[in-house]
């Protein structure tokens, strides 16, 4: 399994598009900080969180879904890996771990960059505010992985990466925005049950010094249970070569 993870990471990191996207996000953050006028610091932090949780989340998860699910499907590499003796369970575990590592790589570049810009422009942000921002970004890794695991399930169930990518956009954009608006305008908190809403509430709990129990729900249901279903469906799946 470690061999497969290593091979996958190297292959994905060789894609120029990974570094082009990274560069674009780095530049976007640069302008984010540059365009801060004298808005209140709470506002600055909210837009930073929206970057991590919405725009960047979309770009990063779609990139990973294409690099792992779509490229793999087009290359038949899952079939090849199984044929040379990688167990099916191990294979999809390896893919899930690749999701986690790639998410971490992206945020591990973007978060320090933002903190660095905040430091050089000497924005009056407290240590507590900054560390909460780091926590928020860290939680996004969990959310991104939940999005990608659902993508993987869709891909395995439907044999279509196009649908998996569509599921990705739906999760990050439509469901996220939809539930946030529903909460805002109609006071319906459907968001309390989506990964996005749960992670958001977990963050609020952490900020308020309470236990972020919502993370347990996300990990058990949206990551764990969905993964278990994907693994079960994949167990006897016919693979094309």
């Amino acid at each position, binding site marked *: 399994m470690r061999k497969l993870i290593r*091979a996958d990471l190297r292959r994905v990191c060789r*894609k120029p598009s990974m570094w082009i996207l990274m560069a674009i996000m780095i530049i976007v953050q640069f302008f984010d900080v540059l365009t801060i006028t004298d808005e209140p610091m709470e506002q600055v932090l909210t837009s930073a969180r929206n970057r991590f949780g919405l725009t960047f989340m979309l770009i990063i998860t779609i990139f990973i879904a294409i690099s792992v699910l779509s490229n793999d499907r087009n290359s038949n590499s899952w079939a090849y890996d*199984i044929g040379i*003796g990688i167990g099916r369970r191990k294979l999809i575990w390896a893919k899930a771990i690749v999701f986690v590592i790639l998410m971490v790589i992206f945020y591990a570049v973007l978060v320090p960059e933002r903190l660095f810009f905040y430091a050089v422009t000497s924005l009056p942000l407290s240590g507590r505010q900054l560390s909460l921002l780091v926590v928020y970004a860290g939680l996004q890794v969990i959310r991104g992985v939940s999005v990608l695991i659902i993508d993987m399930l869709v891909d395995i169930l439907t044999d279509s990466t196009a649908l998996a990518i569509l599921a990705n956009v739906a999760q990050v954009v439509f469901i996220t925005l939809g539930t946030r608006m529903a909460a805002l305008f109609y006071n319906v908190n459907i968001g309390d049950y989506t990964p996005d809403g749960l992670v958001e509430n977990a963050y609020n709990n952490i900020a308020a010094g309470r236990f972020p129990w919502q993370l347990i729900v996300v990990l058990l249901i949206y990551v764990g249970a969905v993964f278990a279903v994907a693994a079960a469906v994949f167990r006897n799946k016919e693979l094309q070569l």
Partner: protein
Amino acid sequence: MSAENAVIRMENIYKSYGKHDVLKGVTLAVNKGDIYGLIGKNGAGKTTIFKILLGLSEKNGGMLSIAGSSNDRELAANRRKIGFFVGHSFFSYLSAKENLRYYATVKGIPGREQKKEIERVLEIVNLQGVKKPVKTYSLGMKQRLGIANAILGNPEILILDEPTNGLDPQGIADVRHLVRRLNEEFGMTVIVSSHILGELEHTAHRFGIVNEGIVVREITEDDLKEKNRAVEISVDDLEKAKELLAAGGVKVLREVEEKATLEDFYFSLIGGEGE
């Protein structure tokens, strides 16, 4: 054939897609060190047999064993002894070398040995020095890369599904020689399929003839020899030979004039060699 000697055994394998029965009780055994030729027309079930062997397709019944094991966990482990080329499995945006590097890593070939091993297999299939991404390759080049990938790391068992599809005559001859060489030099057990009879006739030691989802017959080289009732002799004076044969009471059943084959012509014109 003794059962212990068989590295791959299939007994009564069934496979259906919905109502369509594709394999209806396939039984075959491949011995260690054999070159086993799987022959059958289009749609006979050759690829399906390979897919079940490789764990890509679930059988509906029957027994499969690889290197003596037949439970799922051990089957997966024993598949590590297999190198195969059944269909293309390459990342189109990577070059031949990068693709092989990927699979070399997955196969667990240590990093420092990868470069040498990749050079070795690329040289065998005549693809050295091609740096373009795989999406720009011709069918024949992809086919060669597929074979290179199959022999990467010198597997004990080699599975090739119609490896000569899309290859030019030189390529076809190369594959034939390669299969024999791998078998003789490294003792590799090879299972190779084809729907062209002549292609396997001089390559394989044993043949399984697949038709409509069953192995109708397994034949050995010796069976072929036994079937050879007629003997061909070359003489310098045909008339005299006929006279002598008639005097000795030997009947001439058939006279064949030897013509050059298309293959002979082709190779004499462009160089290279066939059989």
